[in-house]
């Protein structure tokens, strides 16, 4: 299909340490993005389901403001916008914050779905046992809602792993950035693109497969 192109994998072999470094940065961005996104997302979901009108309104506004624009907009907003106020976040920090804020909106909606799927009697039972509302949430509602939300979380987390490639726009030295530099240095375009695609495919299918395994274990224990 690619006429006149002779594959030469030597350049890729030489660049393996660089690829490893890039991969490590990508994994860091993804893990931090997932962790903070989950934290913010759960908080937003709680405020979304709150009986306080003001709180639930704020949660809804957060979700709509975040969901209706690309994550790249938030990255640029933080990286190019905050310097107007004398704040100069690093590219890495901007990337992590933007991915967390963006995906928190999705995780909030997912977790809200998980919360709503927990039967109301669970809450009533917990309260009748004398649990405080905090205890009810943390020991009764949260674990069940989290379990319900796990399959959808897994999809979102795969999206985050893929979105780490966008942080190359801020010159975060993650996998995609490293590879596009290597391509312009060595001109071994298709070798590097092939390896890049393979690494991402492995990452995303390992994450999805791992999550499926966790889901099956949890279901089994119940």
């Amino acid at each position, binding site marked *: 299909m690619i006429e006149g192109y002779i594959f030469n994998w030597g350049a890729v072999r030489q660049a393996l340490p660089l690829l490893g470094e890039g991969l490590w940065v990508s994994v860091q961005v993804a893990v931090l993005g997932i962790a903070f996104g989950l934290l913010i997302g759960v908080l937003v979901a709680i405020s979304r389901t709150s009986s306080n009108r003001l709180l639930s309104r704020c949660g809804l506004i957060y979700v709509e403001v975040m969901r209706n624009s690309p994550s790249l907009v938030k990255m640029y907003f933080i990286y190019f916008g905050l310097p107007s106020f004398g704040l100069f976040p690093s590219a890495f920090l901007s990337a992590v914050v933007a991915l967390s804020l963006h995906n928190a909106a999705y995780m909030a909606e997912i977790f809200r779905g998980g919360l709503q799927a927990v039967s109301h009697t669970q809450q009533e039972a917990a309260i009748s046992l004398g649990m405080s509302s905090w205890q009810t949430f943390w020991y009764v509602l949260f674990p069940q809602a989290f379990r319900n939300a796990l399959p959808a979380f897994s999809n979102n987390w795969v999206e985050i792993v893929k979105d780490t490639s*966008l942080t190359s726009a801020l010159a975060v030295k993650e996998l995609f950035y490293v590879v596009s530099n290597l391509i312009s240095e060595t001109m071994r375009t298709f070798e590097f693109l092939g390896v890049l695609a393979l690494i991402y495919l492995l990452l995303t299918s390992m994450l999805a497969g791992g999550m499926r395994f966790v889901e099956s274990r949890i279901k089994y224990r119940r």
Partner: protein
Amino acid sequence: MTDSYWSLLLPLLRGLIVTIELAGIILLVGTVCGVVGGVLSALGGITLRILFGSIIFVVRGIPLLVQVFIVFYLLPFMGLTLSAFVTAIIALSVFASATIMEIVRGGIEAVPHGQTEAAMAVGFSRGQSMYVVVLPQAMMSILPPLITQFVFLVKATSIISLLGVPEIMLSGREVIERTLLGFEVMTMIWLLYTAICYPLTMLGRHLEAVLSARGFQAVKN
């Protein structure tokens, strides 16, 4: 002051038009190919299923940016030198078609098999029972996730800025480099994207409510 805001906004609006053109073409091509592909894979045999299944596995497992890059490098090697705009449309249309195909297939498979059997029992052919009986029912549950996917695709066009197509994000970056007004420019871009995507999101939610009131279940994307 208002004068300078206009001078910021004008290049962005020019970029917005490119974004809307890109998104419009991609949504159209993606929907047509996606529906055809979805019907084919629901009707077709095991080979077609494996073929489409592996396409979707690859398209979903690799970042869109990487896919777009691969298309950008691959097409010239295959003897096709096209403008960045057209290449971007091709790359994003492949992604759009594959993801929409999966939604359509899910919708078709959610229609109880008894419907097809009943249609064939009264003398419809396989194609007729699909077109007359199954597809109209499937469409109902397909619509909400389809619109969610539309919103996703509109947002995904922002990736194309990294390949030098002068859509809204690239215009924004150029204006920022010229004026250093990062906050103002990015706020405008944020608002412009929201102006396109929010009505679509609301439409999706409205449809979902209407359909669930009529007893249809939206397919999970």
